């Protein structure tokens, strides 16, 4: 055995320019990619197909046989007013949060690209909402928005603005606003980092040129820097949209979708139906309604990639 290996090695060397299998680029390329591609195919593509099959079936935990029943499960999903409430909330949360993200993330990126003393600690604190696991970040807000001991309420009481408590998470409108705020709060740092990364790619000559022109701060910010940043802000928003549209953690920890489904979103509703309620077909069907949004986002990203401006 070892003899063969030695002679094998010998022949490869003796043949000189003729390369062994390990030097064949095509062989290496395929060999290098196959494990990762297989892993993803088996554990992403297969469950994805299964998700579609489940949605067209009547599978429950009690009756796990996969009988295809066409659109019956979708009909049941759409007959429930909570589904429409969830769909509406998903859009409301995503649109308002990300509109706020654009403003705050642009401002934050402009701040963090400047040099100033104590920048390290500012950066550390500003990134906390993003670096902390979402569920734990939501736990800190659960306590900050407590119905009795909220420190925000205490400040408002000191200012004489309220008598007792606001009860942030117990009233439909305020609960909606709270969830939107927490989403915005946790996505802004990531969006700002993406924008910063994009700003580094902007040639410094352009900025220097505007310096020499004597462009004033606000003019330079709004007429030079922000237009240059626009495409990368677009990319940051795409990430923000994906994170809000698919998230159930914030809602799950803060309100469990309540009060009476006022903050329910598609993701949390799919979870309550599919996992807690055991109706896999309806749960999968509910989650599938996210697909059009994700396809739209993918299409945008592909366009960016084709134009090769950033991605």
């Amino acid at each position, binding site marked *: 055995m070892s003899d063969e290996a030695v002679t094998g090695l010998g022949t490869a060397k003796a043949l000189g320019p003729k*390369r062994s299998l*390990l030097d064949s*680029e095509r062989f*290496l*390329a*395929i060999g*290098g*990619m196959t*494990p*990762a*591609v297989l*892993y*993803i195919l088996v*554990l*992403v593509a297969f*469950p*994805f197909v*299964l*998700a579609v099959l*489940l949605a067209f079936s009547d599978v429950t935990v009690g009756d796990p046989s996969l009988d295809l029943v066409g659109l019956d499960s979708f009909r049941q999903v759409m007959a429930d007013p909570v589904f429409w409430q969830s769909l509406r909330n998903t859009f409301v949360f995503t649109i308002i949060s990300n509109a706020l993200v654009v403003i705050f993330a642009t*401002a*934050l990126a402009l*701040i963090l690209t*400047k040099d*100033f003393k104590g920048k390290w600690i*500012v*950066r*550390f*604190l*500003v*990134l906390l909402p993003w*670096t*902390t*696991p979402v*569920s*734990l970040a939501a*736990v*800190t*807000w659960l*306590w*900050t928005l407590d119905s009795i*001991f909220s*420190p925000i309420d*205490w400040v408002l009481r000191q200012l004489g603005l309220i008598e007792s408590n606001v009860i942030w998470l117990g009233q439909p409108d305020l609960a909606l606003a709270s969830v939107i705020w927490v989403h915005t*709060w946790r996505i*802004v740092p990531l969006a700002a*980092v993406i924008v910063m*990364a994009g700003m580094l790619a902007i040639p410094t000559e352009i900025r220097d040129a505007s310096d020499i022109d004597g462009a004033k701060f606000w003019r330079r910010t709004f007429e030079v820097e922000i237009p240059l940043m626009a495409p990368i802000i677009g990319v940051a928003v795409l990430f923000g949209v994906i994170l809000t549209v*698919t998230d*159930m*953690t914030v809602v*799950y920890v803060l309100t469990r979708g309540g009060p009476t489904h006022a903050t329910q979103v*598609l*993701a949390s509703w799919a*979870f309550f139906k599919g*996992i807690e309620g055991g109706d896999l077909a309806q749960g999968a069907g509910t*989650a599938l309604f*996210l697909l059009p949004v994700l396809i739209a986002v*993918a299409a945008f*990203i592909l366009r960016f990639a084709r134009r090769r401006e950033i991605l």
Partner: protein
Amino acid sequence: MTTVLEAERRQADRRRRWGRIGLYAMAIGAAFLAAFPFLWSTITMFKQDQDLYTKANNPFWFTDPPTFEHVAYLFTNTEFVTFVVNTLTVGAAVVVITLALSLPAAYSLARLAGRWGERMGIAIFLVYLIPPTLLFIPMSRVVASLGLHESLWSLILVYPTITIPISVWLLMGFFKGIPRDIEEQAMVDGYTRAGAVIRTIIPLVFPGIVAVVVFAFTLSAHEFIYALSFISATSQKTISVGVPTALIRGDVFFWQSLQAAAIIVALPIALLFNLFLDRFISGFTMGAVKG
């Protein structure tokens, strides 16, 4: 003439000074907005019950002296330590699987596959857009049929689907940043391509590997929906799910211990991220550069 210049210069100075003050005000404001709930949690974790649950007390000050009692309670009387161990176990295993699969894939895409590889790279990146939210219900069936329900192995198996695409993308950037001449020189010196890569390229992309380790680990520590769907036994929970579900029992909230858990986890992860932030930024930008 000189006085006009003088006045202009003074005006410019004044404007610059106001600019600086504005910058500091905005930076401090942003830091306060972002860190506010963490500040409140940090104060809370050291408060005595009587102090915390008296509505009239200033929540931002210690009316009664601070105490370590609730932090100690977290470690001695709750399963927090179990959650930490579970998270570290899952994180380490996920990191190993991620590196083993994404290093060769990233190298192949960056160097060998040409235009076809570029398309493949975008395809892998798009997988990142298929979120757990879309897959958690069928995935819970897959996990159950493999007999991995209620086991950490379910998370170890599934999390690489989140970490591999992003790691391949990140590493591709690092590989593209290294001149081809380096491994070609080593190949001229008689190494096979595989040998050349291992001896010369891997040490050069080491910073990228470290970034992937940090990234894959934190992504698996962050994950919530799979962990919530696959595991309900407290002893198998990770931090992400264990803290908000198992430390809150019915209406009894151990608020101080709960907030202590959030802070104790948040701070080290944030420190790690801050150390590697510049590397992530350069990695993603390099991934964008044509190879």
